[in-house]
């Protein structure tokens, strides 16, 4: 039967990558190395089963697009405002100094003039996918060194877009032409950036306030937003990544981005795997790869060390602590994946030959692989070297504080039950974070201004992280979803008090077994209370009137509040087949 084979190249990549990934995991290695190795194994170097053409190429590109989209979504201006100036200084300094260093090294190794120029421009340090991926896996992407690195990488990406556009231009001979090309690029990027900022202020809050309550539509509209920017970027001859990143940034400024992050992450993981494998696939064969292997090894070592010191000097100069400077620099010691792209472009333009590309590729592969381990063990390395590095310490150097929650209370769902408990929790724990998946509830919390809030479904780990669940002292969940509550109990600290809600006795028992302090069972609480009311109705009518008047007052007060002003919908995702409390 002639179906279109799904067992195509890219299916093979996924299966093999998973197998190598599992082995790598057992050996304690990062998954990226496994994915790149997959490309090497399947590509021309070893078995030559798979090519990076057609769908594989598209998926790799999509992966990079989604990664940058995701990265943009993590960039909330409020979070990085304090470190924006130092980041810009560092990024510009780093770009200039390390290009100079790469130029010197290439010159010293005896390449020809054009080659030196290409190599200097192409050897950019700091590979976005690797740093972002490994730091995200380590949950350090939003730490201070992580933010500095990401900030620098973004400025660098802009620089790379410029370099790419330059290489794509027909000739590099005429200074006037170069200048005009540059001007056009900057104007375009400014235009898209402006559009992104304006829409995040005026257009998006309106659109997303309407759709964020509907999970599926929310996701697809967000993806559509990314593709809109990709298409615009394409219209201006800019890369997919720039468009996706700007789309992400404009979404990041909305209060709804946390859950979206968690929904985009798996799609990114899926495609980015193909991207990393395609790096391995691009190596055309052992011969050209190893043509300049000695030079590549020397250059790699010099550039890794040199670039570390460049970064360390620049971050340190901005007055960050030694540890931050160290971590921020040591994360950046790999050649960017863009150097391969730039190299490939330079080949098609005839500036360099296959051997120079091999040199660039080998350098990228070596530094990427080594640096993955360095990033994975960055803290351990710092601890070893800390005594020596302590000579750079001084009292003026302090890190800007990035806010985190600690020993606070978390409430899941903003309803009658949690609302009344919040003042009590605030009094006891100081800080209360409310997590809710309804835009109207979030709007009320925002207006109220008293409690912190996170928009999103608690079933998403990104949302749990944003609420600081791990450090919470008290958690009050008004979700009846057993799987959500179990994930919660799994994640909280041992001494945290957890109140969770359950619909059935069976579920309540299992929550108790998993460590819940108290399980709220509305149905029974209500039923026994209602039975009492009923009894009073027949035995002591006055007492009945008295007691219901209090409840009625409460209901009316709540009924007027803004949170209830919109159609009441389902505020958590549910699986219709798993429900059915018969009451």
């Amino acid at each position, binding site marked *: *039967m*002639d*179906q*279109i*084979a*799904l067992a195509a190249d890219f*299916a093979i990549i996924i*299966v093999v990558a*998973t197998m190598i990934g*599992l082995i790598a995991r057992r050996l304690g290695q990062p*998954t990226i190395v496994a994915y790149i190795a997959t490309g090497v194994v399947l590509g021309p170097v070893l078995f030559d089963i798979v090519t990076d053409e057609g*769908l594989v190429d*598209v998926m790799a590109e999509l992966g990079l697009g989604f990664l940058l989209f995701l990265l943009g979504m993590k960039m909330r201006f409020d979070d990085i405002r304090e470190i924006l100036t130092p980041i810009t200084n560092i990024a510009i300094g780093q770009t200039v100094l390390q290009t100079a260093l790469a130029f010197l090294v290439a010159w010293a190794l005896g390449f020809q003039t054009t080659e030196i120029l290409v190599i200097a421009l192409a050897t950019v340090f700091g590979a976005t996918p690797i740093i972002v991926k490994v730091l995200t896996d380590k949950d350090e992407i939003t730490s201070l060194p992580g933010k500095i690195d990401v900030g620098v990488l973004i400025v660098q990406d802009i620089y790379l877009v410029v370099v790419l556009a330059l290489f794509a231009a027909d000739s590099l001979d005429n200074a006037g032409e170069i200048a005009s090309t540059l001007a056009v690029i900057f104007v375009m990027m400014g235009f898209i950036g402006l559009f992104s900022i304006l829409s995040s202020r005026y257009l998006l809050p309106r659109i997303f306030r*309407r*759709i964020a309550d509907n999970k599926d*539509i929310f996701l*697809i509209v967000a*993806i*559509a937003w990314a*593709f809109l920017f990709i*298409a615009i970027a394409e219209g201006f001859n800019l890369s997919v990544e720039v468009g996706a990143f700007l789309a992400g940034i404009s979404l990041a400024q909305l209060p709804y981005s946390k859950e979206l992050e*968690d929904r*985009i992450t798996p799609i990114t*993981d899926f495609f980015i795997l193909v991207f990393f494998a395609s790096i391995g696939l691009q190596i055309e064969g052992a011969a050209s790869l190893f043509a300049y292997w000695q030079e590549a090894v020397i250059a790699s070592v010099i550039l890794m060390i040199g670039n570390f010191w460049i970064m360390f000097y620049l971050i340190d100069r901005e007055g960050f602590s030694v540890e931050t400077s160290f971590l921020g620099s040591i994360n950046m010691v790999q050649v960017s994946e863009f150097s391969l792209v730039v190299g490939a472009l330079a080949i098609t333009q005839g500036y360099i030959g296959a051997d120079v590309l091999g040199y660039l590729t080998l350098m990228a592969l070596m530094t990427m692989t080594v640096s993955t381990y360095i990033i994975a063990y960055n803290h351990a390395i710092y601890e070893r070297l800390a005594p020596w590095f302590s000579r750079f310490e001084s009292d003026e150097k302090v890190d800007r504080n990035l806010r985190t929650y600690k020993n606070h209370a978390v409430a899941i769902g903003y309803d*009658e*039950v949690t609302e009344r*408990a919040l003042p*009590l929790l605030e009094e*006891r724990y100081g800080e209360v974070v409310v997590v809710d998946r309804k835009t109207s509830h979030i709007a009320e919390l925002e207006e109220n201004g008293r409690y912190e809030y996170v928009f999103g479904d608690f*079933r998403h*780990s990104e949302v749990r992280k944003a609420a600081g669940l791990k450090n919470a002292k008290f958690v009050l969940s*008004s979700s009846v979803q057993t799987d*959500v509550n*179990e*994930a919660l109990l799994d994640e909280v600290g041992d001494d945290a*008090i957890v109140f969770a809600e359950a619909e*059935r*006795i069976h579920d309540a*028992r299992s929550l108790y077994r998993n460590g819940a*302090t108290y399980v709220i069972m509305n149905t029974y*609480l209500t039923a*026994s*209370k*209602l*039975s009492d*009311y009923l009894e009073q109705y027949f035995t002591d009518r006055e007492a009945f009137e008295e007691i219901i008047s209090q*409840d009625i007052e409460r*209901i*009316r007060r*709540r*009924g007027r*509040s803004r949170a209830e*002003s919109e159609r*009441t919908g389902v505020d958590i995702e549910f699986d*219709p*087949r798993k429900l*059915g*409390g*018969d*009451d």
Partner: protein
Amino acid sequence: MSELIIALSVMFVTAGALLLVANHFGFSPIPFYIIAGLITGASGFVDQPDLIELAQWGIAFLVFVFGIQVDFNDIQSVFRDAEVAAFTQLLIVGSIATVVGYGFAVFFGAEYPLRNAIYFAAAATLSSTIVGAGVLEREIRSNLVHGRLASSIHFFDDMVAIGVILVISAETLSDPQLITSNIGYGVLFLLAGLLLYRHGFPLLVRAADGFEELILMGSISILIAFIAAAEAVGISIVIGAFAAGIAIRSDGAQALGVRNGIESIRDFFVAIFFITVGALVQIPTFEALVLAASLLALVLFVSPLVHTLAFLYEGYDTRTAFLASSSLNQVSELSLVIAIQAWLLQTISDGLFDAIILAAAATMILSVVAKRYEDLVYHTIVERLFRGRQTRYVDEHSRVEEEIDGHVVVVGYGRQGRLLVNRLEKLEVPYVVVENDPVLYDELQLDCKNYVFGDAMASYPLERARVADAELVVSTVDHMPLSTHLLEFETDADVILRAESSRDATQLLDSGAAFVNVPNVLASDQLLDNVEQVIENEDATTALKNEHLEVLGNLERYGFASRFERT
């Protein structure tokens, strides 16, 4: 940048804009994906073989997730609630549609008349889980009988669709040996899935050290392996994807993240699938229009009618039967899968292919619109038609003392209803229970002195419960239409209702309810006490927990656990 990314951009941007419209009017996204496909298809951007391949991934993930969600207890619930209706509808509508489809196929000179007849029948008979579950969200959530019935039937239809796909992937339908071998492969795949579920998947979780990304990729690798196996033995990839879904465990601590992940990836590809399907439609020919019109007639009228009659035969009341069937009036998304499989095999006529897709989009939208008028239709047409039969049936199945007076009418015999009845018996206050769930009928008979077996939304059961002479009406059902209906009923009795939110409750209080039970409000006092207790003295937690466990134990002992726990 490649052409494909431009095509994807056009598709997603169009779909995104249309989804804003869908969201505004509360429609399901699927028909709007199809419309986005129709638009982009006409614009000529989306004409690439690679897209078909991405769309195939959409099918694979759609069925894969369905497989993951399948709980074999659901099969049991179909047999408990709706076996007659499910099979009757399948037989009657299925045969009518097959005959009609065959007629058309011959008339329009299709190459494979029998196959086209089956495709036509599948489209006419099966209903859509995604759209149906969206339409009935609240009903299923508050566990109203018709919501439960409809989702049972949806589940049944999905299983039938998988079966149909299995059979039609045989190269010739006239060769019984080939079909049996296909079915044999299907069973083998299922068994392999189950085996992997038992032994393979836990192994994967252990090998991945609980690392979510690897479990996710491992799950997708299982999907790919099953699909490859399906292609190797020559059966549809849908079967492979379904069996792979069976193999994935959806419980345990990592499961939540992995399931979220797979669902996100599915949503991405499924959007591509539906848009691509829409883009494949040509400008409709006369043939396509005739076929689409007859599909509409079958799906919107014939099929609900057969369902209604079958539900009535099974002992459901008229309203439940009508409402359940009226939410089954749309073409299934799996019928689209069947159609595109047939299109890939080149065994479906162009006209029928277009007709199925157009009919699917139309019925999926109409189904949501129809939902808004169903009460009107029920009161003006259905109720009148069945009134005599209905009173007879209620009378036969109810027991109310002749002269009962000053009593309490309890609406709903779930957990709350049972606890209330228990208290009323202790107080020796006379009561009548009104309930319409056939599953609870035996208990009503055994436990209650007075009961009416009928739908409280209809007027006769309330008359029968002598609401006019009652002192108090207590409803344990949080369904606004029912609450309003009870308030409108002419009686001097005080009315206590139930609502999920304070906003609804305020509205009901304003329209004359004596009290409204909002569980969150009633429970909050007790909860606040407990929170205070624990905050002040952390040692109190053990006592609180033990006390509560004991209360729960008592509830269970006296039969107040939920129905599913008691059986």
